[in-house]
């Protein structure tokens, strides 16, 4: 279980971005985090992944405070895909997915052997094996995110934190990527926490959702209890109609 307890965070002397976030995500689940721009979703992900240190409160990973864990140990348990993950220079797809193995390598160890097998499996898992030799920079947006996901899979962590993975993708690519995430969750039990601001995709994808506004979690629970016209009006200021049975969200007015 990954758990945030009363997490507060601010960037330097700026105003607080997180104002006491409590969140519990059980192993083997997918938790969607929705909320308007600037509500602290990405910052929360940073705290959960251990790269941002809360000013107050704690983040517990299977009961252990991430503050007391070494970066390398942490990176074997939690992987993160930040927004706009891009790479300088012309690394090939395979070279980038191999980076997911770095936390598992010894000092002088190279990418062969057991690592190669893991990388291949991750590549084929997302359907990227056939372009594994191409330069990442030449790929389409959808292909790039598949490769990024493969990098996460190659890291073989228990938890994966994804920050708006479908942000720059067209509808088909978005659906494909979300299906891949669901499948990895089902088949391997990989726990996902996915930040997303597209409510329609969120409704279609997540069973459990946390809704954030201004540094706090306003509502958390099953999608049918969180993605309601009331909460959405309260958080996003938009009137909607939601049909959970058919998975339809319609904007009114």
């Amino acid at each position, binding site marked *: 279980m990954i758990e945030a307890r009363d997490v507060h965070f601010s960037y330097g002397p700026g105003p607080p971005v997180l104002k006491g976030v409590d969140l519990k995500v059980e192993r083997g689940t997918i938790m969607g985090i929705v909320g308007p721009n600037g509500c602290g979703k990405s910052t929360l992900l940073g705290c959960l992944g251990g790269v941002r240190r809360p000013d107050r409160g704690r983040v517990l990973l299977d009961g252990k405070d991430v503050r007391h864990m070494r970066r390398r140990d942490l990176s074997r348990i939690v992987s993160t895909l930040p927004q706009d993950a891009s790479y300088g220079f012309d*690394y090939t797809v395979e070279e*980038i997915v191999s980076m997911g193995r*770095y936390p598992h390598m010894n000092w002088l160890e*190279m990418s062969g052997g057991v690592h190669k097998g893991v990388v291949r499996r991750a590549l084929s898992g997302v359907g990227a094996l056939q372009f594994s030799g191409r330069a990442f920079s030449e790929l389409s947006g959808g292909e790039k995110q598949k490769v990024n996901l493969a990098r996460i899979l190659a890291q073989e962590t228990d938890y994966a934190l994804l920050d708006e993975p479908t942000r720059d993708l067209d509808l088909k690519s978005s659906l494909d990527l979300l299906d891949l995430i669901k499948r990895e969750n089902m088949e391997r039990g990989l726990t996902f926490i996915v930040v997303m601001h597209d409510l329609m995709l969120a409704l279609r994808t997540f069973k459990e959702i946390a809704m954030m506004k201004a540094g706090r979690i306003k509502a958390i629970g099953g999608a049918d209890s969180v993605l309601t016209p009331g909460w959405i009006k309260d958080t996003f200021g938009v009137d909607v109609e939601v049909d959970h049975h058919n998975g339809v969200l319609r904007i009114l007015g």
Partner: protein
Amino acid sequence: MIELRKGALPFMAGSLIALLLAVLVGTLLGPVRIPPPSILRILLSLLPGAGGLFDGPEGWRTIIVQIRLPMVIMGIAVGIALSSSGSALQGLFRNDLVDPFIIGISAGGALGWVIGNIVTDGWAYASATAFKVVFSFLLSLGSVVLAYMIARRGSKLPISNLLLAGIAVSALFTSIAQVAIYLFVDNPAEMIFSLMGGLGNTRWHEVAIVLPISVLGAAALSVLGRDINAFAAGEGVAAHLGVEVERSKFMIIAISALITAVTIPFCGVIGFVGLMIPHIARRFVGPDQRILIPSSALLGGGFLVLCDILSRSISVAVIPLGMITGLIGGGFFLYLLASRRGVR
């Protein structure tokens, strides 16, 4: 085993051959004409158990072994140092327009050397040399840290900022060095000339300082290559991949500054090698720093000896090595800027 790109092995083999050729030609050049077969014999007679291979004039052996060979080996050491630190810095800063000269490491090292010279006037050779090397290193590290801090905006490091900050820091440190030379040095021309870069009058004990540090530094950077690769995905991703970001970044910058700075007291400022060589190597072996750094070192060693050959053979007078690399590298830099489409 690590996966090599298709062009990698031929490239490394070619670089090695070029390096050996450069050693041969480099030892051939000089005011005393020694026939190539004799040179080859002298070189081979240095190998253990092959002492009897050369039975020509002892003077020839002295010229080759005591004068030309240390120069050539020093050239290789400097090439290794500059190319591997250039490669590491380009990777760390995610940009191929960076090298130790451009971001101010060299200017800091030069200032350190000048101050070291002034301070150690009258000291014993060994302590004076140690002081100069350490001082060059400290100021080169200071200059790059200064440029980095000025250029950084929050968690972002806009490359135009880094280049500008590097130019500003270089200009400032170079000016301070010049003022210091003008005010405190008896023979300013000589010192300014030796700062222009060159391998002349290299002695073996100098090689014994620069070569091990260059080779060990390049090896250390290659081992850190995995971290540098992770930095190519941004500091955020690097952290998620288990890299201790600040510690690792400091180590990469410090080692790059050290191996650049150690060359300056003995060979002066030699620019642009660290810019060009990784570029060329990357085309063949790819951007994976664990391969790119050793490949750049191999190519850079030969390239620097070649530049030294040019500096000694273009005209009767020796043109400072730093001018040769500046001419070639400056042109290369312009070409890179001009061929760049848009901003990354």
